[in-house]
């Protein structure tokens, strides 16, 4: 991008403050709906970083996929499992949280020293693709990354079918449920039994 250095630096600082603040909100806030919207803020600021890093195509893909699909999916999931429940307090929970915070701070210190100590071999040429990054990514996709590209499409298909099958409610008609044979096998798993009775009963009531 052809911005001046100062503009780049100022926007970097603004984006980083926005990203870290939103991420803190995602992790620490109690209301999960606020967390989901702040997660969208994290994704948008991440797209801003991609623009600063001369990657306009990936920034657009980030906005489309993360803000447009994943965040909306998370909001729908929050809506579907909308249950205000007060979690049972666990004794000595603050010990767990403190230990986790300590471990995370240690990890950050480790990564930070590694980043600052390592001599990175920065490319010193002046070749910046800029507008041509889409062309370059397309060449990569259809030459040397062709197999992972096709595998990614198959993975998306599998994930779609799997998500539908996992989230679908099984409406088993009364006549098809065997009364005597498999009932005992299912009864060893409490979930299956429960789903058969409650969900089937609800559907009967709601449809008639």
């Amino acid at each position, binding site marked *: 991008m052809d911005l001046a*250095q100062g503009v780049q630096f100022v926007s970097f600082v603004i984006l*980083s403050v926005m*990203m*870290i603040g939103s*991420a*803190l909100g*995602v*992790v620490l806030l109690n209301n*999960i709906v606020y*967390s989901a919207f702040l*997660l969208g803020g*994290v994704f948008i600021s*991440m797209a801003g*970083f991609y623009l600063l*890093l*001369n*990657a306009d195509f*990936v920034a657009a*893909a980030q906005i489309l*996929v*993360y803000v447009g*699909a*994943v965040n909306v*999916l*998370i909001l*729908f999931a929050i809506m*579907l*499992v909308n*249950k205000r*429940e007060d*979690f*049972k307090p666990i004794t000595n929970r603050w010990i*767990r*949280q403190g230990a*986790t915070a300590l*471990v*995370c*701070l240690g*990890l*950050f210190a480790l*990564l930070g020293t590694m*980043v*600052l100590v390592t001599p*990175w071999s*920065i*490319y010193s*040429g002046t*070749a*910046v*693709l800029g507008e041509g*990054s889409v062309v370059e*990514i397309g060449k990569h996709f259809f030459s040397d990354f062709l197999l*992972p590209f096709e595998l*990614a499409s198959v*993975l998306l298909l599998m*994930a779609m079918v*799997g998500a539908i099958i*996992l*989230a679908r409610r099984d409406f088993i008609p009364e006549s098809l449920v065997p009364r005597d044979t498999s009932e005992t096998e299912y009864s060893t798993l409490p979930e299956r039994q429960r*789903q058969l009775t409650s969900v089937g009963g609800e559907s009967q009531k709601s449809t008639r």
Partner: protein
Amino acid sequence: MELQLQYFLLLAAALFCLGIYGLITSRNAVRVLMSIELLLNAVNLNLMGFSNFIDPIGIKGQVFTVFVITVAAAEAAVGLAIVLSIYRNRDTIDMEQFNLLKW
């Protein structure tokens, strides 16, 4: 003030640590999935930084980032479906109560 590679790497490290903290301490199952998204975004930021500063000619980091975004979308869909079916069966989304596989 020129942007350095180290700034982006430090920022990605901070985001990664925040994601790990949320992944371990949160009790809501949906929030755990959100923390996983934070982790994947931190990795993406690392890849993009390397792609811009070390390999700006054949931008392989951007290609890998696109793959990571794809896998993250698939993971979010399947994970939320699993959370939904667990919620239907157990009637809770508290991570402490998902103890079916505990002896």
